[in-house]
């Protein structure tokens, strides 16, 4: 897992300093219409994209910030955002 991540506070660092926080699945489902099935899907099910995905990272050995980046899972590198987030 040797790649670099740009922390918004500390700048570019080795990925070994970070903890993976999972896919960014957007905001929590509305509680008014929440069912066990939708909550289970939100918490446990992933898209596992082969390509660019938005994901959470935690700078464990540095500033302690949580932030999101875009990573191309096929080449395992951080990339610029090229996802159309208005049409997920």
């Amino acid at each position, binding site marked *: 897992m040797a790649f670099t991540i740009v922390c918004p*506070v*500390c700048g570019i*660092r080795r990925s070994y300093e970070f903890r993976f926080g999972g896919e960014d699945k957007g905001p929590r489902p509305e509680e008014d219409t929440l069912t066990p099935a939708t909550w289970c899907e939100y918490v446990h099910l992933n898209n596992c994209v082969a390509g660019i995905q938005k994901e959470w990272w935690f*700078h464990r*050995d540095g500033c302690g910030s949580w932030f999101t980046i875009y990573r191309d899972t096929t080449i395992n590198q951080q990339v610029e955002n090229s996802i159309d987030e208005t049409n997920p």
Partner: protein
Amino acid sequence: MTVNLERRSPVTLKGRPAKTEIRDGWRIVSRYSGNAQGPHIIDLSHFSRWDIQDDALEQVEPYGSKIPAKPGQIFMDINLLIGRLNRTQAIAWHFAPEKPVFPQTKAFTDITDAAVAIALTGPWVFDLAEKLCALDLSEPDKNPPFLVQGPFSHVPCHIWVLHHEDSRGCIALTCSRGYAGDMVNGVLEAGAQWGILPEGEDRFRSWMGW
């Protein structure tokens, strides 16, 4: 009834103290015997450190001093260092011999007893740091003093690069108190090839021009 509190540094350095004093419950070594050129390792754990957290840090002024605007920047004055960590957090570090008055506002937390603090001074300290730290503390774009948050000897640290001139310099490290023994052993092991020695706080003051 008077209670005399004894406070113990998490750092134990093997050396022969030439001058010690008791200050605010801490037994402090001002000077070790011998006058070697170094590099030196200095225990700074007894100096007061405050964690400052506030949503509007620009309005918080520890000791009437402004907190630097950007993460990594350090404000340095006589007996005072203030380092910016992120948007909402900073650290203030006092080196005055007398105990500072603790501000009674919610932004401040005294973390003196929670962390270990050591300084590395003298020649070869940046060579020594390269053995223990993957971060580039000699980056030409950065002019000391500056603050880096990252692993040093595999321990999450605040790394205060205070002085850098050729191969000589002064680096202060702070990390959680429980790492003290391993951190000091790591530094001593890495610095053995340059003859690293323990020193007292007088040496640190002279480096800082205080």
